[in-house]
């Protein structure tokens, strides 16, 4: 395999509870891969195993062709940006960034130049001699990133580095970090529970649930072609209409639902209980010409969200229909009105119902 980081069948249990269930993951050189999942899914455990801060019960970790499974963290060349940044409180900003280089006994002049370069890269050059205790959250994060990158690690791990920042600052920092890592062509693995963050920053996303990877793909595939109901539910919103399969051929199925027949992609046997999922922005309201599936439903709520409008419809228990549009369709619509909706069969995916 040509992957730069290769995790093979990594498993870990804590007090009898299986946290990682034999995970395989390959990351290419220079790639930015996110581990996305709810808290407790094992993503941080996997990150700590790669960093060498935790020993796996089974499985191997290979980096740049070498098996590093048994190697202590200080001999791995794997940098970590911790969730709380873990800056050394007794050192200045510059001393924090210099720490790794000094520990590797780099010559004084090189340390000085490298520290200056990385503080410059994260726009913290004016803070070099400040105590890290006096910094804001965003500034601490910049220092943590500079400190981890200054030693030139083969791999950078980021453990929810934005979770302590407020929303506006977070978006700025995400764009900044993404650009910095691309400039330095750093290979990075990023742990997050925030789907927007993962979609925005990653080359590929590994969606993790209960210690196993549900799907590993680029963000567009994760969003538009989720492989499992878990990925569908965890990433983004979706409409969901239940029914049963009545026809199936060549990766296409037809479902019989309370709202009529619906065509979707998927391979399920006729007779199976299933549901059709569609992303809310892929549904059109009151189309002049129908495209594929058509349903008519009473409107329940209109939710204004600034750049878009969300329409919620009344459907049977357990189902939901949500439509997102850039603006309200050009007609007076109020809750209770019956609207005609349509969506293409190619935008709809059929999943087997979890209960069946």
């Amino acid at each position: 395999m040509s992957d730069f980081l290769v995790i093979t069948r990594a498993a870990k249990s804590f007090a009898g509870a299986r946290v990682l269930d034999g995970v395989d993951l390959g990351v290419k050189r220079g790639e930015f891969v996110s581990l996305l999942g709810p808290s407790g899914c094992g993503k941080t455990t996997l990150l700590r195993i790669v960093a060498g801060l935790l020993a796996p019960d089974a499985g191997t970790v290979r980096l740049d062709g070498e098996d590093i499974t048994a190697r202590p963290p200080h001999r791995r060349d794997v940098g970590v940006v911790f969730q709380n940044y873990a800056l050394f409180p007794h050192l200045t900003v510059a001393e924090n960034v210099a720490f790794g280089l000094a520990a590797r006994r780099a010559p004084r002049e090189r340390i000085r130049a490298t520290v200056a370069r990385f503080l410059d890269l994260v726009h913290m050059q004016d803070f070099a001699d400040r105590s890290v205790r006096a910094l804001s959250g965003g500034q601490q994060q910049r220092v943590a990133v500079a400190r981890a990158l200054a030693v030139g690690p083969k791999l950078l791990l980021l453990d929810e580095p934005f979770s302590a920042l407020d929303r506006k600052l977070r978006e700025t920092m995400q764009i900044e970090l993404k650009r910095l890592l691309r400039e330095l062509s750093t290979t990075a693995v990023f742990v997050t529970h925030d789907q927007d963050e993962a979609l925005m920053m990653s080359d590929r996303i590994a969606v993790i649930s209960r210690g196993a990877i549900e799907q590993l793909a680029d963000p567009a595939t994760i969003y538009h072609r989720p492989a499992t109901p878990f990925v569908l539910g965890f990433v983004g919103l979706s409409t969901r209409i239940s029914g049963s399969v009545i026809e199936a051929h060549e990766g296409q199925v037809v479902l019989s639902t309370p709202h009529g027949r619906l065509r979707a992609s998927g391979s399920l046997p006729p007779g199976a209980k299933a549901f059709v999922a569609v992303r809310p922005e892929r549904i059109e309201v009151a189309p002049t010409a129908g495209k594929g599936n058509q349903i008519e439903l009473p409107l329940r709520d209109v939710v204004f969200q600034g750049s878009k409008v969300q329409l919620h419809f009344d459907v049977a228990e357990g189902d939901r229909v949500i439509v997102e549009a850039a603006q309200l369709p050009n007609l007076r619509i109020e809750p209770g009105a019956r609207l005609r909706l349509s969506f293409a069969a190619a935008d709809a995916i059929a999943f087997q119902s979890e209960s069946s």
Partner: protein
Amino acid sequence: MRARAREPLDPVGWLALPAVAYLLFIYALPLLLLLAHAVMGPQGFTLAPLAAFFADPFNWQVIANTLRIAALVTLVCLVIGYPTAFALAWSAGWTQVILLAAIILPLSVGVVVKAFAWQIVLRRDGVLSSAMMKLGLWDEPLRLLFTETGLVLGAANVFLPFMILPIYSVVKLIDPRLNEAGATLGATPVYRFRRVVLPLTLPGVVTGVVFVFSLSIAMYVIPSLLIGDRFQTLATLIGRSFLFMRNEQLGSTTATVLLVLAVAVVVGSGVLARRLGRSA
């Protein structure tokens, strides 16, 4: 402490009023009156008693004894107490409860009881001597009782909690992620200890050292019981002056010397620690 000193007077400080008033009348005033004896002769102010004190080579010996014993006790407490504080801070559940009990409970046993217990251990036919013989480390039974080694070991036993607890309280506050961060930056365990853990625990070490040093420079009962009259420290000399020789002036003079020494060492170690902390 440094930061607080620069701030304007905080009204919260008034909450210390009862303690300040109590200490003023029960501690500071009597102490001042006592110390005044050292510099007040029949003809008013005089430095003669102090000059006489320092002119006697025996007193220099006593000062040396006092400082040496206090320094050794502090050192033993630090060497034993430093790792113990980490064990206490990083253990969990019952282990921590048992450790904490083992450290705090001995405080409830009086010094006199402990000193007599130590006599049993340190005798020529005592527990320690027999154990060393059995292990083959000593060729013949040795008596540690009434020796400086015995005194240091006994005193360190009594004062150990005062070293462990302040260090424990700073270790508990250290984020374990700092050590991990150091490791991922390529620092060896030794480097991490030297540049991260040690500087961060230094304030606790200074507090512990000051506690133990102040306690052992002034201890009276422990040397009286574990080493006897042949070996004098400033504290036992003060006791002898007042109780047996009825020489209040000598007692007050010795007390002054002891106080000045103790304050000098305490302040000096604080300054030193601050400088170490800054350069580390």
